[in-house]
């Protein structure tokens, strides 16, 4: 869709593309000193234990070891590592080091040493005597279990989220709309099943890592791979129990985040070491640590009851989610909400009643966090699978059943905070997806000459754009020498390309090339406040802040120009290269204005705008996946995937496309082989890339991505979000295709060849 924009909607290169492709130093470990103290953490080998005695004397004698800290050395105020707006919905349930350890991998001691070998040696020499306690490992029995993960009385829930540490509850709640049981009583068809999504790992290529030092003002300077510099500042200060003013956090380039780095996973350890020793320190998480002691997806079991008429009209949905937050409650109370709020509204059209209830429980497993999709992924796998099951049961084409029931533009969604879809092209997405995928020919089950079976599945997806009435996106735009611009942001480009897309918004507004806009961020001292890059907020919210800041700057430039041209600002018009008198009698260039702004000037040649939104407009997506299944081995090869996305205006179609492709492929891994299994002792079997297999380029088939644009009136140049919506279709579409090929619905991910083969009929 050509909306007449010059820079918005152009597939321009990312600003940092060539630096990254040529391997220039850009990441934490590349740009920070080599000789910092090496920080490592001794980790619990028990899922639940009480430290009776911990002796660090021998460890401290290892040459090169500078410090060893235990629970006796750390502040006793609980905090959360969740990167959320204060007061965080996540409970304050952590100490830097605690006498009770709550999962295999929980921190027992912190070691700081001059080199890695000394640190490793010290780890082995810390003598710990544990009282091993019985763990709670099954989320189904966690609620009201006599064994408590957090029995302590200084545990705090800051927000009313239905949490109760004396019941192992991190959150709980329920909401009902309409006469639920009345509607179900008159439904012709009811589909009722539970669907389980595992605690997938973000598996970003750069593990968690942080460098800390005391700066020249005596403050704690933190350079970290984080999506949330401002939340990080607060969390570190909380963990160390020091004033927020003493902490300065910045991020360099980030080697992938996907939500992992929306939790302060590694930062607190080197920060504590530096604060105590006043020496530079660095922590580089190993891959194993990133797999066992980080912030993966919440394992959820989503129970769906779906009521419909025999014509396939979806009349009622009852969704109950049991979510496992693990040992700590980061993002527990919030992720669960999306499992209902981003799945039920997809079927708004004929929905007469719905209920959404949930419990989020503590267990002695790795604490979960934020991972792309943030609960919506789990909810959509469940609801989309149930809709596919309904279509099959009624003998209706699954795309037709969606055409009858899906949300469309202008509808009010009771299950989505009563928001109205101002921009929704989901109907066009589905229609176009059918075309480019060739649904008519790929959906039918086809038996190949070699015995393999080809068929396809479908799913829809939605997400949000920022957290409504909460998130703040901000931008500062300023005019510099000779008329270039600086754009300062607190949002975090983690490879997504927001530095570039935001510069495209600025360029559109300021009528100049994006090359004339230098982007800087994110830095808690220098950037304007921004919640950070999560919740699909940056393009939509920070983008709007950029647009508004640029409008304000143009006004200021007209005011400065008016002084130069000795007229009133109202007589001037901004046109990119400068300001023009409307009567054609004068012109002041950007350079003239920039120069003037630095001489005897009181009008700021810059503008800062903060933006927030009362709504969170959902992006939408339709996706179809064709597989080839080997009925003799259960092996599944993904052949073809088509997806059509409505992200409002695609600010940069090349980047939006790659976002979509990346999300689809992560979803394929989740659907087929990214397994997380716990051994009887509570440790994770898939603790490396050798055991936790993410898709390679041989596992994904062909991708076809297109956009059906809509225009979101509250977004910058009509944009909504793109980052998360794209991960949700793969699993339900693949599960659907596997059912088509085998006649068996798989409701537990990942759907491995073994599960497929052993469940085949006539086995």
């Amino acid at each position, binding site marked *: 869709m050509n909306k007449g924009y010059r820079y918005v909607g152009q*597939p321009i290169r990312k600003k940092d593309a060539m630096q990254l492709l040529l391997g220039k130093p850009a990441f934490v470990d590349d740009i920070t000193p080599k000789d910092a103290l090496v920080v490592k953490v001794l980790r619990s080998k028990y899922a639940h234990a009480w430290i009776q005695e911990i002796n660090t004397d021998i460890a401290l004698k290892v040459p090169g070891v500078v410090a060893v800290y235990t629970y006796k050395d750390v502040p006793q105020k609980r905090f959360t590592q969740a990167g959320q707006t204060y007061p965080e919905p996540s409970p304050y349930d952590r100490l830097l080091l605690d006498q009770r350890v709550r999962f295999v991998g929980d921190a027992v001691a912190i070691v700081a040493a001059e080199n890695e070998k000394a640190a490793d040696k010290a780890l082995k020499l810390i003598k710990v005597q544990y009282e091993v306690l019985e763990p709670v490992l099954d989320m189904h029995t966690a609620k009201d279990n006599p064994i408590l993960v957090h029995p302590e009385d200084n545990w705090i829930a800051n927000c009313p989220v239905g949490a109760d540490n004396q019941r192992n509850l991190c959150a709980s709640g329920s909401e009902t709309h309409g006469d639920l049981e009345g509607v179900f009583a008159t439904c012709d068809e009811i589909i009722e099943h539970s669907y389980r999504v595992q605690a997938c790992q973000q598996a970003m290529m750069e593990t968690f890592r942080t460098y800390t030092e005391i700066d020249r003002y005596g403050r704690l300077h933190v350079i970290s791979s984080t999506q949330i510099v401002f939340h990080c500042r607060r969390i570190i200060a909380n963990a160390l129990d020091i004033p927020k003013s003493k902490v300065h956090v910045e991020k360099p380039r980030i080697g992938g985040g996907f939500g992992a780095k929306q939790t302060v996973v590694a930062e607190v350890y080197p920060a504590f070491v530096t604060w105590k020793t006043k020496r530079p320190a660095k922590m580089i998480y190993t891959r194993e640590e990133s797999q066992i002691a980080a912030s993966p997806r919440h394992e959820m079991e989503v129970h769906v009851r779906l009521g419909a008429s025999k014509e396939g009209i979806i009349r009622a949905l009852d969704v109950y989610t049991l979510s496992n937050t693990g040992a700590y409650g980061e993002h527990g109370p919030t992720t669960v909400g999306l499992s209902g709020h981003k799945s039920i509204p997809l079927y708004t059209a004929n929905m007469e009643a719905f209920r959404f209830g949930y419990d989020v429980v503590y267990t002695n497993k790795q604490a979960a966090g934020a991972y792309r999709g943030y609960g919506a992924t789990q909810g959509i796998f469940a609801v989309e699978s149930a809709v596919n099951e309904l279509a099959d049961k009624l003998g209706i084409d699954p795309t037709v059943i969606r055409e009858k029931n899906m949300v469309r533009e202008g509808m009010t969604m009771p299950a989505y905070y009563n928001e109205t879809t101002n921009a929704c092209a989901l109907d066009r997405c589905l229609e176009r997806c059918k075309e480019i995928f060739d649904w008519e020919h790929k959906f039918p089950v086809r038996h190949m000459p070699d015995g393999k079976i080809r068929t396809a599945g479908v799913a829809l997806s939605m997400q949000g754009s920022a957290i409504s009435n909460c998130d703040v996106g901000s931008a500062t735009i300023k005019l510099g020498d000779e008329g270039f611009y600086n754009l300062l942001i607190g949002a975090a480009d983690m490879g997504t390309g927001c530095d570039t897309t935001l510069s495209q918004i600025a360029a559109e507004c300021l009528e100049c090339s994006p090359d004339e806009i230098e982007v800087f961020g994110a830095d808690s001292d220098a950037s304007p406040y921004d919640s950070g890059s999560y919740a699909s907020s940056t393009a939509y919210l920070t983008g709007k802040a950029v647009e508004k800041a640029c409008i304000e700057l143009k006004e200021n430039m007209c005011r400065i120009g008016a002084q130069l041209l000795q007229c009133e600002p109202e007589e001037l018009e901004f046109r990119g290269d400068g300001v023009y008198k409307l009567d054609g009698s004068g012109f002041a260039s950007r350079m003239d204005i920039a120069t003037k702004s630095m001489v005897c000037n009181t009008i700021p040649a810059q503008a800062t705008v903060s933006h927030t939104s009362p709504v969170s407009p959902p992006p939408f997506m339709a996706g179809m996946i064709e597989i080839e299944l080997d009925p003799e081995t259960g092996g599944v090869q993904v052949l073809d995937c088509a997806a059509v996305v409505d992200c409002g205006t695609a600010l940069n179609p090349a980047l939006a496309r790659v976002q979509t492709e990346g999300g689809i492929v992560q979803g394929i891994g989740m659907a087929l082989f990214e397994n997380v299994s716990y051994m009887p002792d509570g440790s994770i079997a898939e603790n490396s890339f050798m055991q936790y297999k993410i898709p390679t380029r041989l596992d994904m088939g062909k991708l076809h991505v297109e956009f059906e644009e809509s225009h979101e009136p509250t977004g910058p140049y009509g944009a909504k979000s793109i980052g998360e919506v794209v991960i949700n279709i793969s699993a339900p579409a693949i599960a659907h295709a596997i059912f088509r090929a085998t006649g068996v619905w798989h409701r537990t991910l990942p759907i491995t060849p073994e599960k497929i083969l052993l469940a085949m009929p006539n086995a």
Partner: protein
Amino acid sequence: MQIQMTLNQKKITAEIEADTLLLDFVRDHGCLSVKRGCETANCGLCTVLLDGVPVLSCSTLAARATGHHVQTLEGLQAEAEEFVGFIADQGAEQCGFCNPGFVMNTIALLRENPTPTDDEIRAYLAGNLCRCSGYDGQLRGIRAYLDWKEAQAK
């Protein structure tokens, strides 16, 4: 112990410990493009050329490289520049952390097979993990480069 090797065309002598890994060694010698992404030889981020052959520097002792020529992306900028712009045009670099290993292995691929098919590209680069891009953009970029090169030759 002492080792001598050629690192990016430059002869160097250095004192190392017996268990110094080539990955850490080259990073200590300014080749910061070389990344560690795992401890299990599965990600391909640490790919360097050892006598022109792409190997995993995370699992190679620096001592073994004695007497050999090690190349990192720092030493192959011109060769990389010829094609990485095509990947940038796709936006497929994304976070960039896997890029150096991927670019190094692509260099090796194109030296070995200047006109690879899409399947040959996928197979050769299978050991280079990327979590951001979904791989297709990288393939489009390489394909665009090969098409451009073919057009140039005509």
